[in-house]
Each structure stands twice: as C-alpha cells, then as structure tokens.
C-alpha cells in the first residue's frame, strides 16, 4: 500500500543572521493510512518544522516528499494551499476559531477557500459537528463556549473537507487534564473510524495514548516505535 505521506532524507535549513540552523537534518518517515502518530520532542528539536512540512505550510530545503504517491517536494505556494485545503485538517493549540463567526460558519470556513462549489459541504459540516458532539451549539459563537468545546469545534472544522491527514499541534496544551482526556478520546475515536492522525506534543503522557511514537531531537528522528 502506498503511504499517505513519505519523506526521504528531508532537510530544512534556516538562515539566522550569519548562521545556518539545521532545523531538520535528514529525516526519513512514512505515514500509512490509518496511522495514529505522536511526534514528541523538546522545544527546538525540530518537531514544529517537521509538522509544518507534513502540513504543507513549508517546503524542504533538500530531500523528497511524496503525498499520496505524488512527488510534492518543490511545489508552488498555490499548489500547497490546494493540498492544505483539500487533504489536510489542522487542529491548533489555541483553537484559532474566528470569534465573529458562529460555530457552524467556523466549521464551514475551509469550504470558502475551495475553488469549486461543493453542494455537500453544509451537510458534511453538520456531520462533522455531530461527530464531535457539538450539533446543539451550531449557532453559538466561540466566545460562548468552553475551551474543550472550542477545540471540538476546531476538530470539526478539520474534518469538514474530509481530509486524508489530520495534523494536531499540541491540541490539549491549553486544556485542563480531564478536558484534555476527552479530546484525546475523540482523536482515538476518529482514528478508529479510519482517520490518519498526527499529533505533535511535548507531553509524554499524551504521546502515550498514540499507537506510534516518533521522537525527534536535533533535527533527527531518534526513535520510531509502534505499540
């Protein structure tokens, strides 16, 4: 089976003044369909950079990147936007909901940036809200919701376009432990439904709930284990 996403000898350098920072220094990684991955590492390890590459927010300096079998190492920013729009669902630590939009409108937001009209979008948004258990709050605004509820809405937003890959960046970082637990339960449930999920965290306990753990340090994968 073709992996959803495959990295070979991927390197990412940044220039900071006169110095070159090797944020990623030769990463090999294959994400299979249905994977449930935690990327773990201390800050400065390169896990954020890895996450940006996995989410097509950035592109590698060297190495190759394949997405659903296609070579996508050096593509234009519009092509990356298209992949993000159609194939990737993002969940952030600080939820990033737009306060002036209703829950429903927030969930539909990715659809606005689709180039083609999609008559099924509203229905899928409804379904996504049902999946995260927020159907009854569709007309509320984010300000009227608790942190856990907001993150559920953000997850629903990530689900609307039926992505191949869900990327979550410290999704429980701003939540208390019981709420965090229920959010992780939700991710587990989504994974059991067949979703491919990658979660970035520095919290070993959170990482422990994922099936596969990838440890990053100094721009390299130092351990990749599957339970």
């Amino acid at each position, binding site marked *: 089976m073709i992996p959803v996403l495959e990295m070979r000898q991927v390197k990412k350098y940044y220039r900071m003044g006169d110095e070159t920072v090797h944020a990623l220094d030769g990463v090999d990684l294959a994400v299979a369909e249905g994977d449930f991955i935690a990327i773990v590492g201390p800050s400065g390890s390169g896990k954020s950079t890895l996450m*940006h590459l996995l*989410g097509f*927010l*950035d592109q590698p300096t060297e190495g190759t990147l394949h997405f659903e079998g296609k070579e996508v190492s050096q593509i234009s*920013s*519009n092509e990356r*936007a*298209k992949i*993000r*729009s*159609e194939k990737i669902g*993002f969940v*952030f630590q600080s939820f*990033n909901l*737009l306060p*002036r*939009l209703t829950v429903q409108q927030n969930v539909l*937001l*990715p659809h*606005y*940036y*689709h180039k083609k009209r999609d008559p099924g979008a509203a229905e899928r948004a409804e379904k996504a809200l049902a999946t995260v258990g927020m159907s009854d709050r569709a007309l509320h605004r984010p300000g009227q919701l608790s942190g856990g509820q907001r993150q559920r809405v953000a997850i629903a*937003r990530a689900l609307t*376009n039926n992505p191949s890959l869900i990327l979550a960046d410290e999704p429980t970082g701003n939540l208390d432990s019981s709420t965090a637990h229920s959010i992780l339960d939700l991710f587990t449930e989504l994974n059991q439904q067949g979703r491919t999920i990658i979660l970035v965290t520095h919290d070993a306990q959170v990482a422990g709930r994922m099936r596969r753990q990838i440890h990053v340090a100094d721009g390299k994968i130092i351990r990749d284990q599957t339970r």
Partner: protein
Amino acid sequence: MNLFISIWHGLRQIWTHKLRSLLSLLSVFLGVASLVVIVGFISGLFVKWERSIYESGGIEKITIEDDYLPKQQSHLKSLSNGRTFEDAQAIRKLCHHIEAVSPEIGLDGTVIANAKPFQGRIQGVTPGTFITSRMEVIRGRLITDKDIKQHKSVVVLGSNVVKAIFPPNSDPLGKTISINGDPFTVVGLLKNYVQMNGDFNILDWKNKFTYIPISTMEDRFRSSRKLTWFDIQVENIASIDQTVQEVSNVLIHTHRGLKDFRIETRVDDIALFNKTKAGFDSTGIAIGLVTLLIGGVGITNLMLASVSERMREIGLCKAIGATDSDIFIQILAEATCLSAIGGAMGVGFGIIAIQVLQLALVKSEYSPILSMSACAIGFVFSLIFGVVAGVYPAIQASRLNPIDALRYE
C-alpha cells in the same frame, strides 16, 4: 473563494468594528458629500446662466451695436444716422441664413387701463423680435408686418403688465388702453414666463414688456429713427461667420460707407461660458477628490492596523487552504466595501443636503441643483480609491507566511 463571499466577509468585518470603520469612512463620506454639494451649487449657477442665454436668443443671436467712427472717418460724424429700421429691412432682403431680424425702438413709459398705471418698457418691434426673444402669445396675436405697414395702434402685453392694469378674470383682448396718453387696442397677450429658482423667477424680465409696431413707435413717441436694440437670429451656428460678413456688407452700404456700427456674436460668450463652467466643475471635483484621497489614506491606515491585528486569523485561513490571492481579494474587498459605504453615504447625504439647501435658499438665485454626474463621479471614485487604498494592506496580508502568522501573538 468567490467575490461575493469576500464582500460578505468584508462587510461582517466592518460591522464588527462599527465605530472604527465609521471613523475611517467619515472622510470618504465627507469627500463625496462635499463633491456633490459643491458641484450642486456650481450646476445651479450654470444651469441658470445657460437658460438665460437660451431665453434671450441663444447662441445663434447676432447683435448690432452703435460704435464710434474709426479715426480716419471721424470728420464724417455728423453724417452718421445710426442703426435704423431700413437697415433691418435691407438685411432681411439681402442676407442669407437669416431666421429673424429684430429691430427695436424702446422707451420708458406708462401704460394705463382701468385707471391703473404700470411703469415699464414700451418696445416698438417687428415680428422678428418675438422670434429672437423667444416669446409666444397665449391669446390673440403678435405684432404683424401689416400692423407695421399700416402704423396701427395695437399692443401686445406681457403678463405682468396685464396683471397690473386689468382686474383678475377680465378679458383684456380688444380693450383700449393708454400708452403715454395715446389709445391702443390690445390684440395679444404673452405667455407668462416662469423659471423658478426657489422664489426667484429668472425669466421675469420677459413678462414686463409692452409691444407696439415699430412704425407706430416712430410716429408717436420718437423724433429720431434710431434703433435702441438690433438683433439678428441666424438659422444655424455654422452660418454665423458668413452671415456676419454679409450683414457687415449691407450695413456699410446702407450707412454709405460709415463704419458706425459693430457686430457682436455670442460665440465668445459661449466659449467663456464653457471655459468658466469647466473651470468651476473641475475645481469642485478636485476639492472633493482631495478629500476623498485623504479618506483613502485613512482607509489604508485602518486596513494595515486591521491586517496586523488579524495576523493569526490570516495565518489560520492560509493553513486551511486560502491562497495568497484569496487573502489579497479578501482584504481588498473589505477596503473597497468600506470606501464604497462611505461613498454611498456621502451621495445620500449630498442629495439630502441639496434638498435642504434648496428649501433654505428658496428666495436666492444661488440655490443648488442636484447633479447626477457629481453623484456618479463621487461614488465611482470612492470605489476606485477604496481599491487603491486596499492594495498595499492586501499585498502585506497576502505575503504573510502562515507559520509566522499563526505564531504571532
């Protein structure tokens, strides 16, 4: 993302920051409103000027005036007879492209009927006068060539004269009135000319005249045969130069070579009119546009602030699939909506302001007229300036790196 959704988002964003949006569109609003009002005043003046040119004969009118003899002819001064009715008859007979010739002899006099006097201008005229001065009878008839030939004692009255000397509901036609002591029969009543500018009738001068045949005037009231006014109406503007030359030839002949006249056309008047109007219009529009420009700068400023305030939001939109051009259009649409709302409010306020000013200045000849083209220019420029004002912030926003934008606190 389609344009309508961008505009919808723009409007939501503007509505979210009502006060801030209102303040920054205020200068666009003032710019457009001032443009509409200033151009309204200018239009008011020029529409009246234009109308008065038309009502007094229009652009096709040629006026013949008395003039001093040139130096080399000045010793013949005692031979000069000035402009006469015979000149008019010769011109009518000999010149081409002539619509009407209007020789007039006028004097101040008193018209009396029913023991009520009216002090005004008595004009000895030919039928041509009613053409050059654009006057029609409402009842009865005008002065005819036959009246002139037979030196008849008939009179055509302006509406103000009728009102002054006849009781309401009476029929002046056929009645005898006294002009400077001589009896005349009323044969025609002129239309009442009204061009109201508030309470001020700019055509009222047309209603104040008493017209009698020019020959009768010469007989009864004047020892001299000299004309007081002498106008010619040409058929069309293209033949003015030729007609001026022909009229000059005839007059040189009838005046036996004496150059004691000068011929004036209104071509220069019209050129002056157009030049002055263009000058005023462009000044008015320039003032409005400068204010609008200031408004545009205000909108640029607001949008820049708004972009840096919404870094995370823009980052998010990019992360979930917005392209650079989506963001560009979104910010541009917002700036344009903001400016267009200001423009539309300005047009609305301008229209109301002109109506209020028309009521307030009802007795003045300076009351404004609503210019639809000023409204259109104001609104279109508010749109254009909105787009221009939005370009820089939109470029800034579209260039944001989603990673940096998401990290921004």
